[in-house]
């Protein structure tokens, strides 16, 4: 007997999870289907974490519309869902005439899109950013841009959706789809489920899902971007998100503080065939550093703690692909979600109930819904709060991640959260363990032990992230070796 739902959302990245969050406020049954062992493991896992103000998108596009709406929603959303977010503003910096022309164009777009933008001159610019190169002559200042933790936002959406009754199916790659007797039959390997309507938020694989569904064709082209993530000691080189203008050398890179106080430098943009290769390479990283050096020489790259790569889901349409499909019934796309995808996710979700009503489904708001989330963060708590936490639960007194001051209590909270992680990286995304300067050198064995103990997983079966990413092979000193 296969299960059936009103709504099936395919893809638990930030767009799919925002959709699940919004739709969980209505009296409909929903399922969020994800191929990986955890949410937030595709494009959402590795990106710049920027909430764009909205001046970059071409006026009249869906990108412009949803970017501006989404950015405006962030302060309240972040507060209610306890997501790390800071409205630090962004500066697009000009170094020459060509750049200044670009600024003019961005300014015009910003005004048309209804964004708070201002062109500022050299003196004010250097007053705001003393480490910026003297060659910088002008900048576009957008105070409403911000930084956020993309996986924290994604998890907040997903956990709250689950609390409201949305079912989450992880490790569930969709292998086929068929419209039959007025419902969608969705095959997940050997299983089949039914849903009255489907939302395609499958990111890097959204074109494949659309194809399975017989929807209007589009193509996703993965574009990789590589980054440096530097130690907190570099976190105050700049106070705002620093963008560059595109030049003959290519698109500029950004330099930005992160919500954890680190410094992010990157990304470049390189098209690739693979949708799963998140590897880094030295040439791309050299390019990133070269471009970043134009802004400042104050960054000490010896303080680099990690390089990583993200994969953007570019579509061949040039804009977001959002809305009910023209060919397939009861099928909504949220696809081609390259930048400003993260910024737009919450705003797009708001339009979904209307689209689903258009399919003939009743969308009645639930009487009792959870729309907030609380999260303990020992590192940002003050002395009184810390003492009270430890008094309540001594586990908050045991520091597990030295670099980021993260406690056993927080790891236990994560392991008993609505979407319990089973892997080291799952705990990392929820708590921040292993994201610091030692990159898990100290905390990995401790977190490993906690996962094994709390979830009853045999020690050698605990994995790093993907299926098959075992950490240890087995106990030492076994006989018969």
């Amino acid at each position, binding site marked *: 007997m296969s299960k059936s739902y009103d709504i099936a959302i395919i893809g638990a990245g930030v767009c799919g999870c925002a959709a699940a969050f919004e739709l969980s406020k209505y009296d409909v049954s929903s399922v969020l289907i994800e191929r990986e062992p955890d949410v937030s493991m595709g494009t959402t896992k590795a990106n710049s974490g920027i909430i764009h103000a909205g001046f970059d998108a071409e006026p009249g596009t869906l990108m412009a519309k949803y970017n501006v709406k989404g950015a405006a929603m962030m302060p309240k959303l972040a507060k209610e869902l306890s997501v790390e977010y800071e409205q630090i503003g962004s500066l697009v910096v000009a170094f020459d005439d060509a750049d200044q022309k670009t600024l003019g164009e961005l300014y015009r777009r910003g005004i048309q899109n209804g964004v708070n933008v201002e062109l500022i001159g050299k003196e004010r610019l250097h007053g705001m950013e003393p480490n910026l190169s003297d060659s910088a002559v002008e900048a576009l200042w957008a105070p409403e841009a911000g930084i956020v933790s993309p996986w924290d936002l994604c998890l907040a959406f997903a956990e709250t959706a689950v609390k409201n009754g949305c079912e989450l199916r992880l490790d569930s790659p969709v292998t086929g789809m068929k419209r039959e007797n007025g419902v969608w039959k969705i095959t997940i390997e050997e299983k089949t489920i039914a849903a009255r309507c489907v939302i395609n938020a499958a990111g890097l694989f959204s074109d494949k899902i659309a194809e399975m569904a017989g929807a209007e064709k589009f193509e996703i082209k993965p574009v990789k971007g590589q980054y440096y993530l530097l130690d907190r000691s570099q976190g105050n080189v700049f106070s705002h998100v620093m963008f560059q203008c595109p030049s003959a050398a290519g698109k500029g890179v950004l330099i930005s503080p992160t919500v954890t106080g680190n410094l992010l430098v990157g990304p470049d943009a390189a098209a690739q065939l693979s949708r799963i290769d998140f590897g880094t390479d030295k040439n791309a990283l050299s390019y990133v550093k070269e471009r970043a050096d134009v802004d400042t020489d104050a960054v000490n790259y010896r303080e680099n703690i990690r390089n990583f790569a993200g994969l953007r889901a570019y579509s061949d349409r040039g804009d977001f692909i959002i809305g009910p499909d023209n060919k397939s019934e009861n099928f909504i796309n949220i696809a081609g979600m390259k930048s400003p995808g993260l910024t737009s996710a919450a705003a797009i979700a708001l339009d979904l109930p209307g689209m689903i009503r258009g399919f003939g489904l009743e969308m009645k708001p639930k009487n009792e819904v959870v729309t907030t989330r609380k999260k303990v963060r020992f590192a940002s708590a003050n002395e009184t709060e810390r003492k009270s936490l430890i008094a309540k639960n001594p586990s908050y007194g045991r520091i597990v991640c030295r670099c980021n001051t993260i406690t056993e209590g927080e790891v236990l909270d994560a392991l008993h959260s609505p979407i319990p992680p089973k892997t080291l990286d799952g705990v990392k995304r929820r708590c921040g363990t292993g994201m610091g300067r030692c990159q898990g050198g100290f905390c990995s064995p401790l977190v490993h032990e906690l996962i094994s103990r709390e979830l009853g997983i045999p020690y050698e079966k605990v994995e790093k992230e993907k299926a098959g990413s075992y950490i240890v092979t087995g106990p030492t000193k*076994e006989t018969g070796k």
Partner: protein
Amino acid sequence: MKELTCIVCPKGCTLQVDEKTFKVTGNSCSRGSDYGAQEVRDPRRTLTTTVILEGAARKRLPVKTDRTIPKSTMSACAAATNGIVAKAPVKAGDVIVENLLGTGVNLIAGCDMEIRQ
């Protein structure tokens, strides 16, 4: 003639050792000639490893051979420590295995381990 690097001090002199007479040249001191001769005649090493530990806060007990064993038996002796279970309490120097693999050498505990549930 065997050539090897002396490891007695950081100088690392290159030694030439006659495999019949065990006479050593190239050394800068007498410790070097002793080492060279021994290393060619009968190379020996101390084995350090762990054994399973029960009843303590830690799951493994560091152990070592209380004297050197022939270098050729190192891997076999290491394998022979598999499956051995020590039980807390343990004191540093306690004999965990007598006459390891017939070498005449004992495997002893490296540190104290108290009983802990």
